[in-house]
């Protein structure tokens, strides 16, 4: 189960020519315990790739299999139910809010997937508490809260559908450092307690190094790298991916060059600090 891409290509129809957004992508994503970051520069087909995962886009060539459902589907086969199994949070999801109250907006997703009013309410309250929306806000208008809170409400709207895989398209874009940290902590918590697979598009290599386990690098619509992050950052041709090094690795490399502290990769600041303390005690 999970999601499989088998030699998938997708071409956008242009005025006269069709141009390929992604080409010949083969992937296997397990439904549990994966934390995948998809990186690549603007226009490399990241958003196109993730929109195949919940059947918003159908491959023009090749096949995608999402929880056993083949895409493109056979005639008269409905694929709508896949969107409950694979929850997709778009860029700037706060723009999709529309209901009168925050709670009603979070309930919109589950209600579309045939939950009764009470069930939807229960799921919405659970999702709201996961993202840290206070009970006192439930009856407020979603247009009268801060941008960071709006984003949390929008994320809760997807979480309330109880998807098995969570896909995030640049979830931290436009947030301040604190908002970014808080939001990522929520996703990490979901990943660790419920073992859900999380797939995240990002440009921030620090987020990749701190949270992701597996990294997919796209370059001009093709798969340039797919593997654990440890392998990516030690890749002999890392420059060819045109990616930035995470800050913690940059610091370590600098220290090795300038003061001779042996290079040993640490992927977040806490372990970096720990490592430096260890080294200085020796």
């Amino acid at each position, binding site marked *: 189960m999970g999601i499989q891409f088998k030699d998938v290509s997708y071409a956008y129809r242009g005025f006269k020519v069709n141009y390929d957004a992604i080409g010949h992508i083969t992937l296997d994503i397990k439904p549990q315990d994966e934390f995948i970051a998809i990186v690549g520069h603007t226009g490399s087909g990241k958003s196109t790739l993730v*929109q195949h995962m*919940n059947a918003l886009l159908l491959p023009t060539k090749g096949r995608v299999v999402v929880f056993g459902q083949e895409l493109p589907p056979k005639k008269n086969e409905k694929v709508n139910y896949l969107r409950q199994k694979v*929850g997709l949070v*778009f860029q700037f999801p706060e*723009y999709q809010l529309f209901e009168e109250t925050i709670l009603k907006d979070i309930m*919109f997703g589950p209600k*579309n997937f045939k939950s009764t009013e009470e069930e939807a309410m229960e799921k919405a309250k659970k999702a709201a508490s996961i993202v840290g929306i206070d009970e006192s806000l439930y009856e407020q208008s979603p247009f009268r809260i801060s941008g960071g809170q709006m984003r949390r409400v929008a994320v809760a709207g*997807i979480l309330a*559908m109880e998807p098995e895989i969570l896909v995030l398209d640049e979830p931290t874009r436009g947030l301040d450092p604190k908002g970014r940290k808080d939001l990522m902590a929520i996703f990490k918590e979901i990943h660790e307690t419920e073992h859900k697979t999380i797939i995240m598009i990002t440009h921030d290599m620090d987020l990749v190094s701190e949270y992701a386990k597996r990294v997919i690098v796209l370059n001009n619509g093709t798969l340039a790298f797919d593997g654990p992050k440890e392998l990516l950052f030690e890749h002999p041709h890392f420059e060819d991916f045109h990616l930035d090094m995470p800050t913690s690795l940059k610091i370590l490399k600098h220290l090795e060059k300038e003061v001779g502290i042996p290079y040993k990769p640490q992927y977040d600041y806490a372990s970096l600090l720990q490592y430096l303390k260890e080294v200085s005690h020796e």
Partner: protein
Amino acid sequence: MNNITIGQYIPGDSWLHRLDPRIKMLSLVVLLVGTFIIPISTSWGPIASMGAIFIGMLILTASAGIPIKKMVNGLKPIVFLLTFTFFIQLFFITDGNLLVSFDFSLSLTSVGAMIALIVFYNWSKKYVKFRILYFLFIVLALFAVQYALPYLSFYTYQLDVYDQGLMRAGFIFIRITNVIIMTSLLTFTTMTTDLNYAIESLLKPLKWIKVPVDVIAMMLSLTLRYIPTLLEETEKIMKAQASRGVDFKESKFKDKVVQIISLLIPVFVISFKRAEDLGNAMEVRGYVIGAKRTKIDQYHIGFKDIMSLITVILFLGAIITVRILG
């Protein structure tokens, strides 16, 4: 979302593309006036001149390098109107010689057949590609069964086709087609920015009576500029709501209302936000309402432009002369 074809600019480098936009717009107005001045009549003169305009328009289309297929696609939205006016004219003009007469009857058999047809139409319409044509075909069939199944009838009526009616119907049919081809020729060969410039420059005399022409032109160009942007935003929101389980294609009417709201409110909010951002960006770059502004593109009226204008004015003059003399 990307299949809005009416009035879409087709890039090219024909003489029509290169004509000054002001001249093109003026010529269109003159041609339209000419087309409407030709009297609706059944003598051969007006019909021949209408046909001549039609052929002339086809030649112009070909010389501008516009594919005929595009032109036909542009006519599609008015197929319904065309057929409707054609049949109204056909049956309600009762001058001249009677050509054919149809007896229609509402009877138990024909009403039954009509209900069956409507049910069949509702069931089958999702499998048919040419919706409008199919709909017209069914409407025709509705009348055909009234003609063919007069058994057990309780009401009968007659529709007569006279030769005058047929000619007038044909005349109006060609006239509407001509008007559509003319206007689409303008929009096919002129960029929206050029069109906007033409409107602004032709409306300039209104400044004398204190009409804020440049503000109107700016509003027009911003509106045109933001159509694709808003379509894009709408598509994004549609996808986002589809990810929350909204099925825009197959759902009951009751659900549809909520779905439309889930689309409308976000798009409304976004367009206000966009407008505010745009206003700020314009102000930052020194835009002041009503202040004098210069243009990046200068337009010059050349020999060809003047010749084109003279040609269409001669054409209008000819029609007026014929009308007065005839």
